């Protein structure tokens, strides 16, 4: 986990934004913990925000490329498929 923290130290502003987003999403998921339909919609929204953040983060770092975006896209897609099948 230390390595993850080191990465965060390099770009604190980008990760503060991501951290705030994740906290907000976690609160929403907790509020709607008994409503799986709303939880599913929140996860779709989170996946969209995660992709938007990836574009912002890598653009600012100057290493935005198609292969990096595909990596984020596949992870988001995988999360959506699992959530849609489970909740």
């Amino acid at each position, binding site marked *: 986990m230390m390595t993850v923290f080191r990465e965060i130290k390099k770009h604190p502003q980008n990760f503060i934004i991501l951290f705030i987003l994740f906290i907000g999403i976690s609160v929403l998921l907790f509020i709607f913990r*008994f409503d799986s339909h709303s939880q599913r919609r929140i996860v779709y929204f989170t996946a969209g925000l995660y992709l938007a953040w990836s574009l912002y983060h890598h653009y600012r770092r100057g290493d935005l490329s198609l292969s990096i975006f595909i990596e984020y896209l596949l992870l988001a897609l995988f*999360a959506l498929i699992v959530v849609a099948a489970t*909740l």
Partner: protein
Amino acid sequence: MKRFLSRLFIPQESNNHRALILQPSFLGLFIAVYLLNQSLLQSLTIARPGILGYSSEITADKVWTLTNQERQSQNLPALQYNSVLSESATAKAKNMFQQNYWAHTSPKGLSPWDFFRQAGYQYSVAGENLAKDFYDTESLIKAWMNSPTHRANIINDKYQEIGIGVVNGVLNGMKTTLVVEHFGTPLDGRVLASTPPSSTVNTVQNFGPVSSIKPINPALISKTLGLIMFLIIIGVLIVDSYITLKNRTSRLTGSSAGHVGFLLIILALLIFSRQGTIF
């Protein structure tokens, strides 16, 4: 084999300093495997209806007791058990199995109030709570109490009577238990003394013979597979970023911290997601 496993999990020169599992082709493979699992489960519901589903310990008696406990905790009088309301609730649950739907209004347009009338219950106020796929009564009541609209029915001081239908059957190819609560107050204001609900659970078979073996829970299979895959990806992400930073390797990849954060939220959601659906 050892070399392949090493390339799969550990970043090195032969995998372009990125564990194979984290490369787009393998992430695509994870998605394909998961979708294949879903298709197999779906095929099974069509080919062998009743093999998949939920087994339940719920009885009308327990639902009645716990519903009244919730009312008493709010200083409200207990609801009397009415056998006519129980008939309407059971008829509603059976109708959902027979016509294969999950809603307050049937595909033919029958509303909950039609079931009250068909059973011969004349009401001044009435309400309906629905639930499916719950294993135990405590979780079911907890889910209803945490939903504002269902809770409003349970602790409504205008209701004096209740009838409960607990019916097993096959809905959309999967075995499940439907629970229907019908609340009401008789139009003439005459509340009869309670007739305790029967502990027998009705069964409807609308998709041919249903096997007596314990059904396989499809949501549990999908959840377990999803959890295993998420844990593998998170674990490899942490190992991958540790080795890369240790070796000071420069490469063009996504942010491990971002990926781990996103996957941890989904992982927590999967772990803490609850059983059952209410309507």
